[in-house]
C-alpha cells in the first residue's frame, strides 16, 4: 500500500514555516525535496542538539521534521541557483514556500511565476501573516506571531507575564492547515494552478477557543489564569512525584462531583466533610475564592501522599477526568501509549545520533497508512538524483 500522495513531488523552500506541512505530505507518500542553500537549511541549526558530536545532522528538530525528505543544495542568490530552482519548480506538483512574502518574492517565488513554470502546480505559501496586507512583511518569529495572534494573552500565570505555548507551535499549526489546503487542492483532477495562502497568525487566532466569542457576546476579555483554578476541581494539583490535572467540569453539571466525593469517601480523605454541603453544587459558590481555597486544601492533602500513576489509575477507574501532567520521559511509558505502540525506534543507522524514540503516526488509516521515517539526509545528498533525474 502506498500513501495518498505517492505520485506527488513537493519542492519545499524557505524557513521554519513549512517544515511540518512538508512532513505530513512526506509521511503520506509524497516525495518532498527540501531546498537548502550551501550553508544548510536554517533548521539544521535548530537546538536542541544531540549530545554526541557535531555534524550537519546534529539538530534533533531537523531529524524530526525533515527525516523523511530529500535534500537538494541550491546556491540561492547566484545565477546558477536561480536556474536550478526554476528547474525544480518546473518539475513540481506542489511548491511549498515559507517566510516573509518579500523574501519569497526575492527568490522568484510568486503565484504567477510558479503558474508560468508549472501550469498544474499548487503553490502553498506559509507566511507569518499572509501573502498580502498591512502586516505581511513584518519581522516576526514564532514568539511574535503567538503574541499578535492573541494566544499569549491567555497563557502564563495569573500573577506573571504572558508565556508562549511550546516552541514552534505557530508554524507547526500553520503547517497542519497548509497540508489540509494542499490536500484539498489535490483531491480533484484535472489540476490547475492554485495558490494556497496560509497565515500563521490566523492559525494562532483559531486556538483562542471561545475568547473572541466571550468578548463579542458578553463583552468580557478573557485573561490568563495559570496557577489558579477557574472553579473548584479544574486545574493543576501537586502530588508526591509531580502534578495531576483534574477537570470536574462543573460548568456542565455535577455528574463528576458525585463520583469525586465517593472517591474521597472510599479513600478516607482527610477533610472531605468540608465538601459535603449542597452549596458545592452551585456554580456561584464553586467559583468563589472561599470554595477554591477549601477544595485546594482538601485535594492537595489527598494528593500529597500519592503518585501521578496512582491517582490516574484510581480516578479513571471511577470515571473521574483526571490525568497525570506527563513530562517527555513519562509519555513513552504510559500504558496506553505502549499498548498502542505509538512511539517508534529510530536506529543509529537511520540517524547517526540515535538511537532515539520519536512519535509515530498521528492517524491510522487502513488504505493509505502513515509511512513516516526519521532518516534525515546530509546536506545536498539528493542533489544529483533530483536534478539529473528523469524529470
Amino acid at each position, binding site marked *: 500500500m502506498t500513501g495518498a500522495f505517492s505520485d506527488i513531488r513537493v519542492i519545499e523552500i524557505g524557513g521554519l514555516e513549512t517544515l511540518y506541512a512538508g512532513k505530513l505530505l512526506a509521511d503520506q507518500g509524497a516525495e518532498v525535496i527540501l531546498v537548502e542553500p550551501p550553508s544548510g537549511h536554517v533548521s539544521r541549526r535548530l537546538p536542541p542538539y544531540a549530545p554526541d558530536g557535531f555534524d550537519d545532522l546534529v539538530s534533533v528538530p531537523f531529524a524530526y521534521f525533515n527525516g523523511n525528505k530529500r535534500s537538494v543544495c541550491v546556491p540561492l542568490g547566484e545565477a546558477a541557483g536561480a536556474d536550478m530552482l526554476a528547474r525544480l519548480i518546473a518539475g513540481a506538483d506542489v511548491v511549498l514556500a515559507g517566510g516573509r512574502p518579500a523574501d519569497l518574492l526575492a527568490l522568484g517565488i510568486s503565484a504567477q511565476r510558479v503558474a508560468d513554470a508549472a501550469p498544474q502546480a499548487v503553490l502553498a505559501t506559509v507566511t507569518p501573516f499572509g501573502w498580502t496586507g498591512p502586516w505581511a512583511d513584518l519581522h516576526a518569529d514564532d514568539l511574535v506571531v503567538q503574541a499578535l495572534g492573541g494566544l499569549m494573552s491567555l497563557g502564563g500565570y495569573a500573577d506573571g507575564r504572558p508565556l508562549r505555548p511550546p516552541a514552534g507551535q505557530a508554524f507547526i499549526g500553520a503547517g497542519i492547515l497548509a497540508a489540509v489546503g494542499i490536500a484539498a487542492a489535490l483531491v480533484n483532477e484535472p489540476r490547475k494552478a492554485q495558490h494556497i495562502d496560509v497565515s500563521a497568525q490566523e492559525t494562532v487566532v483559531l*486556538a483562542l477557543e471561545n475568547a473572541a466569542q466571550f468578548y463579542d457576546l458578553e463583552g468580557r476579555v478573557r485573561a490568563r489564569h495559570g496557577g489558579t483554578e477557574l472553579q473548584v476541581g479544574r486545574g493543576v494539583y501537586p502530588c508526591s512525584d509531580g502534578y495531576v490535572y483534574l477537570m470536574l467540569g462543573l460548568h456542565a453539571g455535577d455528574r463528576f462531583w458525585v463520583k469525586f466525593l465517593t472517591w474521597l469517601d472510599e479513600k478516607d480523605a482527610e477533610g472531605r466533610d468540608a465538601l459535603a454541603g449542597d452549596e458545592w453544587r452551585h456554580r456561584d459558590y464553586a467559583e468563589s475564592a472561599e470554595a477554591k481555597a477549601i477544595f485546594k486544601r482538601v485535594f492537595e492533602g489527598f494528593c500529597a501522599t500519592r503518585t501521578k500513576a496512582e491517582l490516574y489509575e484510581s480516578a479513571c477507574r471511577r470515571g473521574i477526568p483526571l490525568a497525570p501532567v506527563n513530562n517527555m520521559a513519562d509519555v513513552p511509558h504510559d500504558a496506553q501509549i505502549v499498548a498502542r505502540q505509538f512511539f517508534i525506534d529510530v536506529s543509529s543507522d537511520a540517524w547517526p545520533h540515535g538511537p532515539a524514540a520519536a512519535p509515530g503516526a498521528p492517524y491510522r488509516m487502513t488504505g493509505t497508512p502513515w509511512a513516516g521515517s526519521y532518516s534525515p539526509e546530509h546536506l545536498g545528498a539528493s542533489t544529483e538524483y533530483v536534478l539529473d533525474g528523469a524529470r
Partner: protein
Amino acid sequence: MTNFAAQPLSNIKVVDFSWVGAGSYTTRILADLGADVVKIESSKRLDQIRVTPPFKDGVPGVNRSGYFADRNAGKRSIAVNLKTSEGLELALSLIEEANIVANNFAPGTMDRLGLGYEDVRVRRPDVIYLEMSMQGREGPNARHVGYGLTIGALAGLQHLVGEDGRPPIGTGTNYPDHIPSPGHAAFAILSALRHWRRTGEGQYIEISQTEATACVLGDAFMAESVGVHQDPQANDEATAIVHDTFRTAATEEWIAISVYTQDEWRALTRVLGISTAVDANWVTNTAPGSEHAVREWIETGTTRWRAAELMEGLQRAGVRAGVVQTARDVVDSDPQLRHRGHWLRLPHPEVGTFLYNALPLRCAQWPVAPRFGAPCLGEHTTQVLSAAGLEPSEIDKLKAAGVLE
C-alpha cells in the same frame, strides 16, 4: 457573489456524528472546503457545547452558544433518536448517499448503536469512516474519560509551559481540540478522499487525540530520548539574545520582542533609549537565575512606550516585535485580520448573528468559507429528510413516534 461551486469538496457529503471539540472542528474544516455536512443530533443526547458559554447576551439556551456556533458553521442539523430502529435506519440511509462518516465518541459507542465501520460498509462500501477518540480505540486506558485539557496533560503539552519551581500551566486553553486533533483528522480525511477519487476505495481512519497532540511536540520527545531533558522554558529560546514579553507604559499591555543578532540588539537598545554601551554578550552570558534582572533593565526602556507605538518603532528598525494582543484587540482593531477577512458575521435565526473564525488559508481560485452559520438543533430535519425522499406524512409520523428529537 461567492463561487461556492468551485470549492474542492463541493460534491462531497458528510454524515457527522461528531460533537464537543475536536470532532466538530474536523467537520467544520470540511464544511469550509465545500462539503455538505449533516450533523446528527438529539435533544436526548445533547452536544454539551450547545450549553457551554458564552451565550448571546449571557442568556443560556441550546441555540445561543457562541462556542458551539464557531465550531459548527456550515453544517445542517437533523434531530434523530438513534436508539429507535427507525432513527437508525434513517441514519444508515443518509449514509448510503454520503462519502464520509465522522465521530469522536468513546470507543465502542458507534458499534453499540449499529453504526460501526462494518455496519456502515454494508450500506456504503466505499465509505471513508473517521473514528476519533481521546486515547485510541483499544488499549488499557481507551475508556478513560477526558477533555482537551486532560489530553494536554497526558501528551506532555501542559508540562512544557511554565517557570522553574512553579506548576506547569500549558497554553491556558484546550489547545489539542483546536489545532492538532482536528487538523490531523482533516488531513487524513482529505488524503483518503484523494485515494478514493483515484481508486474508488474508501477506508477506515482511527485517531487518538493524545497521539495527534504528541506529534506536534515530536522534537521535544526525540530530544528527551537522546538525553536532552525537556523542562518548561518560560519564554526562553536558546538561539536568541532577547526572547520574551515585556511591560509597557499601560498596565496589562505587553509586548513580545525577539533579538537574534548583534545588529538587532543595537537597534533594540537604540529605539528603547537604553544604554547602547551594553554588549549583547552580557545579556546572553547572564548567570542563571538573573534573567529577571535583564528583563527589568529592558523594561526601563519598554515602559516608556505604549505597546502599539513600540511595536511600530521596533519594526521600522528591523526588530521582531509584536503587541501581546487580547481577544478585544484581535476582534476589534487588528488591521491584518481585517485585511484577511478573518472574522465572519453570519446570520442566525434565533440570535441575529454570531462571530465566526475563518480558516487560516485562502485560495484565489476557490473560496474557503462556510456557506452559512451554525444550525439550531434539528433546524434542517424536514429539509434533509424531504430531500432524501420522505413524504411529509412520513416525516410527521416519525415526529409523532418520537424518532425525530
